[in-house]
């Protein structure tokens, strides 16, 4: 197995000066050296194979960006082990830089005052990108991300969406072995997000790029990643497939039912009698529509059969809980899943 990234018990704690709010507290802080250790990342272990595309998610402050910074070598861990492409990132940062690409969302990767085309040419020289690779990555980015109309406009005059597209193109121009994308779709509209996702999929298909993507938009994950790492307050809460995550944390499915004619009270009572003992909830929307919420413990086929037996069903849809809903519930519960 060819490993791109490996961490073992990775830790990062910051020393932070203690300071109260206000003018006098600010003055007092000149004479006080009290500080506290803040653990940003605690005991995180995972490996990512070459060519894998992995989503790293978690609430704000969960430690996602800190992990990306340690994996790229711009932060030194306070504990544990980390290797990216076979080297310790902070010890071999310069060597590693040639083989990785990084996007830090909302932080311009390219020179602010000159057009993106000039920055791309600068990166071609800096990374010594072979002509045939550059031709492909440049053309692919210009076409897929629709950069053509603003390539010659100074970057500072571009909109956020245009700039983010240029940043992503710049990050992948040298066809890096690993791309660290820290919120690359932040602030983008739906169409642009789709283009960005398509570009990532294409670059991965063409170059086998390993992708580590942190995002708050779970559609990015659904479109580009087959594996999820979920962080909660610096700790790894889940490491596995997207489907596995849904199976583990989705605590219910919903059956949407449309009836062929109204249901009488007797039929409703009969259905309740069959289902309530399993913790199933039936919510009626008039006489012709109902929603049946099934907890994970309840058998979906059994619930469906009961509905079909009790009611004149015209149409029926069984819906699992979307990734977004599971994650938002996890965040609300402070990382405590229902598993």
């Amino acid at each position, binding site marked *: 197995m060819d490993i791109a990234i490996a961490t073992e018990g990775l830790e990062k704690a910051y020393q932070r000066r203690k300071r109260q709010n206000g003018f006098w507290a600010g003055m007092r802080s000149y004479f006080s050296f009290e500080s506290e250790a803040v653990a940003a990342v605690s005991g995180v272990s995972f490996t990512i194979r070459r060519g894998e595309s992995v989503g790293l998610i978690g609430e704000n402050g969960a430690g*996602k960006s800190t992990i990306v910074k340690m994996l790229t070598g711009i932060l*030194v861990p306070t504990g544990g082990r980390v290797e990216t492409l076979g080297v310790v990132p902070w010890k071999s940062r310069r060597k590693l*830089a040639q083989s990785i690409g990084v996007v830090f969302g909302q932080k311009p990767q390219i020179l602010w005052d000159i057009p993106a085309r000039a920055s791309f040419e600068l990166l071609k*020289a*800096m990374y*010594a990108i072979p002509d045939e690779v550059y031709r492909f990555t440049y053309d692919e980015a210009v076409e897929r991300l629709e950069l053509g109309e603003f390539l010659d406009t100074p970057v500072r005059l571009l909109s956020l969406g245009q700039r983010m597209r240029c940043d992503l193109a710049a990050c992948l121009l040298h066809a890096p072995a690993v791309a660290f994308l*820290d919120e690359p779709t932040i602030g983008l509209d739906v169409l642009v997000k789709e283009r960005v996702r398509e570009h990532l999929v294409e670059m991965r298909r063409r170059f086998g790029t390993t992708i580590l993507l942190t995002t708050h938009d779970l559609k990015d994950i659904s479109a580009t990643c087959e594996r999820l790492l979920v962080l909660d307050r610096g700790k790894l809460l889940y490491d596995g497939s997207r489907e596995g995550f849904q199976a583990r944390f989705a605590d219910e499915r919903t059956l949407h039912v449309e009836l062929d004619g109204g249901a009488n009270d007797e039929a409703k009572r009969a259905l309740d009698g069959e289902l309530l003992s399993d913790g199933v909830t039936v919510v009626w929307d008039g006489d012709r529509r109902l929603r049946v919420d099934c907890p994970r413990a309840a058998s979906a086929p059994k619930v469906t059969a009961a509905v079909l037996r009790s009611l004149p069903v015209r149409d029926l849809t069984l819906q699992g809980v979307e990734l977004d809903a599971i994650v938002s519930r996890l965040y609300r519960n402070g990382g405590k899943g229902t598993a």
Partner: protein
Amino acid sequence: MSTALPVPSASQLLSGFGALAFRTAESKLTYRLATVLSLIASGFAYCVYLLVWLAVYRENPNPGPIGRGAMTAYLVVAFMVNAILTLSLEFRFIQRVRMGLVGIDLLRPLGFLPFQMAQGVGDALVNLVFVVPIFGVGLFFVGGSLMPPTAGAAVLGAVSLLLGFVVNFGVSYLIVQASFVLQSGYGVIFTRAALHQIFSGLAAPLVMFPDGLRAAATFLPFRHVVETPVRFWLGMAGPSEAPLLLAEQAAWAVSLLFLGELVFRSVMRRHQVQGG
């Protein structure tokens, strides 16, 4: 895990360095009005030095070992040298530290020191372009005394200017490290500016200074940024002094870069790139 990471070749590093220097110059030229205005403003400020010294010579024709004509030439050339070597490096860097953008600079295959130096070269290139016409104006008013007396003096002046650039960059690179540690480097920048103003020989050749200050200047790198190149250019220091002065400049340049890199490694172990 595979360990065969491609290592950037020397030609790649050189080509990246050159490309970054030219693109930095291109960026700087974007703000042409601001660049010209700041040059004019510093020119006006510098005229004050000149006028003060002319007043001193009116009162006392022999205030020290340098005559009025030589002093005028020295001050004009010192202004040119200082203008060429004024780099935007520190302010640019502070801004990047505050906005958490420095992480991006750290992840370029060029390496952090060459990355910063290439930008410094870009700054100096633009400065040079603007200083050439100003030198022409100086020639018109002051005359041929601004020119080197011999071809050898011109060569020594140019070599010394290059070394002066590295010394100046070395000091800036240390300021950059201080910005990392302090998360805001304005204090150290202003301190450095004050020391540079006094000890670089910008206000007058160090030979005109009181003994104490002159002695202090010999222990600091600043005089090798302005005074040494100007003395070579104007023939105030000849070939006999060249080996020692150039060796001193080179020693300061190497020491500052080495120290900067040492501090950088230590800072990197503890620093925190701001923002998520």
